[in-house]
């Protein structure tokens, strides 16, 4: 039974760990801790949600715990909302259509990953759960213990941070005029 559950869900939990923690070692630690915790607490699993939903939440909490420990040693920062009144009339460079085909380019992939690495944990967690794991706003809010409006604000800021980083990279590479 336990072996079957590990086989079924370990890959998805590991990928969640990779996305949230950004390195293989921490993702593996998180994976192991998640299953150890789940099996220790199996008696408390009431079947109200699916087993995956239950163990997924355990995994997110373990990842968040690790991120919080790390963030004590890092400088946390806030991303300001863009001042849209100032956007009007500015020249905002559009991205060329071929950008999507560049995604196999090693430098481009690294630039995307570095921007996500650089994103503060409080924004990255929301971005990972909403945009990569594709959880709903309500579920993300529940898992991260945030209000839905807070999830929306953080998600917007995360997306804009990543968008701006990509624009900077594309300009540097001469892909944007």
């Amino acid at each position, binding site marked *: 039974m336990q*072996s079957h559950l590990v086989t079924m869900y370990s890959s998805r939990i590991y990928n969640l760990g990779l996305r949230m923690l950004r390195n293989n070692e921490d993702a593996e630690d998180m994976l192991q801790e998640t299953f150890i915790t789940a099996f220790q607490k199996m008696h408390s699993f009431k079947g109200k949600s699916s087993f995956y939903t239950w163990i997924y939440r355990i995994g997110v909490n373990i990842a968040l715990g690790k991120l919080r420990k790390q963030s004590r040693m890092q400088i946390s920062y806030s991303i300001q909302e*863009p001042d849209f009144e100032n956007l009007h009339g500015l020249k905002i460079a559009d991205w060329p259509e071929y950008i999507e085909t560049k*995604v196999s380019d090693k430098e481009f992939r690294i630039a995307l990953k570095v921007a996500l690495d650089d994103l503060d944990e409080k924004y990255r967690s929301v971005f990972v759960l909403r945009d990569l794991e594709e959880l709903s*706003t309500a579920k993300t809010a529940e898992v991260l213990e945030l209000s839905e409006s807070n999830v*929306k604000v953080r998600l917007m800021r995360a997306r804009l941070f990543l968008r701006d980083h*990509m624009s900077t990279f594309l300009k540097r590479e001469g892909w944007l005029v």
Partner: protein
Amino acid sequence: MTKPKHDVELQKKICLDFGADIGSELCREVELLMEECPECKVYYDTMQRSVKLYRVVEDECALPKSVSERLFKVLDLDQLKKDL
């Protein structure tokens, strides 16, 4: 010069939209509104494209065999795995 009121309202709506589900009905309505603000449209489009790029780059990878083996060992499920 004071900006037209509709620009300000549009800009607020775009801000809200960044927190809404991409591809939802609300997003489509906002996209229509954004036609009035080409800069905002470009900004919004490139933001959407960056999310799509991330979905490609951060796509799920297979669990490495060594990671799986260590997991089974830590959980003391080695024998059970062999029996599966």
